[in-house]
């Protein structure tokens, strides 16, 4: 018996399924199963007489032409099974993941969705990474939307494939399709005890017409076997052995290594340089002056001088030996301290109205009590544990890149522009990403590798050192906010004014833009869920002087910090319990439409019909988190509980934090309780991990995170000065509850971050009476909280 052991259902001719040239695609399972495949067709059914599954010969069927797939444009994109699923003769199921794996477990969750509707045997599922290509639709792995964008179409793809396998079995048995059904990789029928395995059916099924969506029946949630189940990760068993290929791990024959000295200022330039000492460093091969960056920043490399060497260390040593006189650029005057004062002054002045309800001015004038507060949040760096790294190989006509990128399609397009070649000549395959948090959405480091590879004619790996990562990032925006509210004599909030000032991300793409965008304001400012009868949200402009980019949960970080801190400040002014007052501010369960009050609100690209702003769900998570923390219990002296609740990326998260603050300001976090409603959940393990990770990410920023600039250059350089939270500071008790929901899936990776900082600030206030309005609370050098004078009100 001679069998082919590779994809019977033709895999897309992608680097997707089974591109042997990819240096890191996991073919080990395929090889293993392939070897065993010769023996699997004899399936003994327990308790029955021995049934030997016949070997189906697809050529024995006279089939009409299958025609084109009718599933190329289902909701979410192309659901044609062959794009996503390959089934070997021996039953191995290879699922293509077109999103980048960066720790959110998207390999596992995408596979769960497909495998569930496919009724695959999980033990036979392997995942492969897709290269960047439009055929997959959106591959930009940010915005917490891999599941949201792909849940429906991957279910359709799996279900269509299942239907084709069932149809193939029906054809073989000469039975009506409705007398055949699929389960865990086998098709059975209602007439006898025979079964046919997917591997045996795959070739015949692959010749059948792809069914139309109307003819496909998706499983009901009760029938789900892998969706909403605690399926173990597909990546972890390899990680624990040091296997798997991150961007920095790519190796190519003849590869050389490069590190780059970049101008300290954005749009600074190389005045002159002397590489004599560099070229004397053992292992250094050459230097290369990179083109200067010019505004707008876009995804351009920053310029500077590359050192090319036989190994990374020689390149690092060679860079150390470079003598470069940097020339100032247009951002030479950027100084964080001066800039903060300017932004704060802007925040105190009337701004552009971005949402308005009632008459805030009149209500403030009539208020019994007026409360004002100003909040400040600095730039942050994403600093994934794997710094940016990319490998490029140029053969004179074509370019191939392997890199830890969140969006291989924009990488490919940017490469095409930077090299002046057609993108069809460029192949980009994401490696595993050693964390990303938004930094790896920007492919500047891949462009660097490509430019150098073209120059030196060898495969080149560009490694960013940690100093490069901290000093030359796409930073989370710095922000100043002003809040003012009016309370009536009962303490009820009658007027809410929130003014937000920050250099927008769009300044990275058009340096003339200094006005906060609707998208950024829609992350926690214009979508504020409060019921005050008079409400106004304003923005003030600020010019960007660093590259501003996305960082896990983006503008939600500073907006939730201000809004949820100020909510607790109002509770204090009204003499009320924080949590009760927060629920009163939110008001009764209802659905909000910020556009009805003049906001240009995008709702993360989703419709409000499908994903409403539902204050009932917001209240529910707040009440749940409070219950989990036993809100209202008696606490030890100098302990305090703080709560914050926030909707972002279409999910709802409430966080309660308990702190213990010593007289000297020393902080401990004995407990964190988080309730999350993310709609339909694919894997509760992933949700818990993201809630823990996203919360700690937010706490780390809140306690220590600050990127500052002096003379246009970033001051911090590595983990000592860019401080992040360590094991010993992590909460001892951390509980997560996932609200059961059949709502469509929302985001999970980012929503846990925004409530962390305000919940912490509110807890510190509860413990000490000190209100912290400036982030970070400790900073890189300190051991204790920087407590401002105590509030007396």
């Amino acid at each position, binding site marked *: 018996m001679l069998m082919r052991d590779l994809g019977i259902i033709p895999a897309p001719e992608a680097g997707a399924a089974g591109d042997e040239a990819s240096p890191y695609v996991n073919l080990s399972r395929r090889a293993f199963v392939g070897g065993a495949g010769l023996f699997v067709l004899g399936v003994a059914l327990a308790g029955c007489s021995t049934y030997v599954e016949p070997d189906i010969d697809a050529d024995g069927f006279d089939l009409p032409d299958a025609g084109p797939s009718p599933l190329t444009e289902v909701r979410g994109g192309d659901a044609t099974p062959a794009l996503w699923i390959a089934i070997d003769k021996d039953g191995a199921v290879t699922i293509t993941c077109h999103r980048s794996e960066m720790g959110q477990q998207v390999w596992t969750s995408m596979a769960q969705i497909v495998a569930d509707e496919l009724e695959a045997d999980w033990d036979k599922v392997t995942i492969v990474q897709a290269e960047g290509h439009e055929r997959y639709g959106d591959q930009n792995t940010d915005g917490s939307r891999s599941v949201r964008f792909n849940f429906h179409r991957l279910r359709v793809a799996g279900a269509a494939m299942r239907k084709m396998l069932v149809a193939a079995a029906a054809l073989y048995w000469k039975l009506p399709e409705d007398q055949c059904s699929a389960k865990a990789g086998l098709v059975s029928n209602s007439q006898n005890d025979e079964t046919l395995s997917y591997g045996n059916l795959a070739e015949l099924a692959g010749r059948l017409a792809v069914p139309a969506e109307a003819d496909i029946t998706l499983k009901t949630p009760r029938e789900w076997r892998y969706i909403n189940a605690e399926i173990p990760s597909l990546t972890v068993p390899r990680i624990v052995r040091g296997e798997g290929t991150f961007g920095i791990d790519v190796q190519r024959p003849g590869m050389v290594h490069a590190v780059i000295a970049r101008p300290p200022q954005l749009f600074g330039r190389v005045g002159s340089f002397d590489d004599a000492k560099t070229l004397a460093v053992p292992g250094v091969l050459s230097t290369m002056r990179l083109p200067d960056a010019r505004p707008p920043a876009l995804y351009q490399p920053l310029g500077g001088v590359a050192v090319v060497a036989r190994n990374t260390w020689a390149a690092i040593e060679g860079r150390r030996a470079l003598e470069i006189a940097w020339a100032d650029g247009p951002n030479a005057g950027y100084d964080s301290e001066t800039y903060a004062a300017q932004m704060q002054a802007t925040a105190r002045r009337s701004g552009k109205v971005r949402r308005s309800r009632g008459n805030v001015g009149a209500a403030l004038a009539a208020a019994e009590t007026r409360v004002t507060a100003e909040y400040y949040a600095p730039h942050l760096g994403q600093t994934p544990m794997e710094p940016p790294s990319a490998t490029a190989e140029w053969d004179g006509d074509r370019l191939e890149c392997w890199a830890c990128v969140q969006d291989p399609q924009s990488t490919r397009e940017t490469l095409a522009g930077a090299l002046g070649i057609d993108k069809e000549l460029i192949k980009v395959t994401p490696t*595993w990403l050693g964390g990303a948090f938004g930094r790896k959405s920007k492919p500047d480091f891949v462009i660097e590798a490509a430019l150098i590879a073209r120059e030196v004619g060898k495969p080149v790996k560009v490694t960013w050192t*940690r100093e490069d990562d901290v000093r030359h990032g796409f930073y989370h925006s710095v922000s100043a906010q002003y809040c003012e509210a009016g309370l009536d004599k009962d303490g009820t909030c009658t007027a809410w004014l929130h003014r937000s000032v920050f250099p927008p991300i769009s300044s990275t793409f058009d340096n003339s833009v200094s006005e906060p965008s609707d998208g950024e304001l829609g992350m926690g400012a214009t979508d504020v869920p409060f019921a005050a009868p008079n409400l106004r949200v304003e923005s003030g402009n600020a010019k960007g002087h660093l590259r501003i980019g996305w960082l896990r949960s983006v503008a939600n970080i500073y907006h939730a910090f201000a809004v949820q801190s100020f909510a607790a400040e109002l509770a204090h002014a009204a003499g009320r319990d924080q949590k009760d007052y927060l629920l009163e501010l939110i008001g009764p369960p209802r659905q909000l439409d910020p556009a009805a009050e003049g906001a240009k609100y995008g709702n993360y690209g989703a419709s409000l019909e499908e994903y409403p702003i539902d204050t009932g769900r917001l209240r529910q998570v707040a009440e749940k988190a409070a219950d989990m923390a036993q809100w209202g219990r008696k606490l030890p002296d100098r302990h305090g509980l703080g709560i914050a609740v926030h909707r972002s990326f279409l999910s709802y998260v409430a966080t309660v934090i308990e702190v213990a603050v010593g007289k000297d300001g020393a902080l401990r976090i004995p407990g964190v309780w988080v309730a999350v409603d993310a709609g339909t959940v694919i894997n509760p*393990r992933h949700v818990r991990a993201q809630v823990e*990770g996203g919360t700690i990410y937010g706490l780390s920023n809140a306690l220590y995170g600050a990127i500052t600039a002096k003379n246009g250059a970033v001051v911090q350089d590595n983990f000592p000065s860019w401080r992040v939270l360590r094991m010993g500071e992590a909460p001892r008790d951390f509980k997560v509850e996932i609200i059961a929901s059949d709502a469509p899936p929302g985001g999970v990776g980012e929503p846990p971050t925004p409530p962390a900082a305000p919940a912490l600030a509110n807890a510190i206030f509860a413990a000490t009476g000190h209100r912290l309005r400036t982030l970070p609370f400790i900073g890189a050098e300190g051991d204790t909280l920087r407590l401002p004078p105590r509030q007396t009100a």
Partner: protein
Amino acid sequence: MAITLNINGKSESVDAAPGTPLLWVLRDHLGMTGTKFGCGVAQCGACTVHVDGAPTRACVTPHDALDGAKITTIEGVEGGAADAIRTAWVANDVPQCGYCQSGQIMAATALLRDNPAPDDAAIDEAMSGNLCRCATYMSIRRAIKEAASLV
């Protein structure tokens, strides 16, 4: 000048510039990429290996100072503690992105070998040199305790 290093029980001949940190010898000269680069200044622990059993930051350890030493990396760490750690890591799906986890596993294995029943304070002390930006810290704590019960 080539020197011979004992890595995971095997003799490896290495011809690297004097002073080249072990990290880059492993990754670039020997192609052993399981040991990761995170900071280069012994602040993050991603490059943790064992030198004669002791957790060591490979990014600041010159390879030519390791003549005669037994070097163990994530690819070669074995034994009861390492097995228990790996088992608990998989059972708890500890890693998220996984990049720091080679270092975490090397640090946790050394901890468990020295202290078969570490409490929270011992775990914090042994593991605080290993950063994780995905913040798998709570999972690591759970898994170390579970691993202790497996040894």
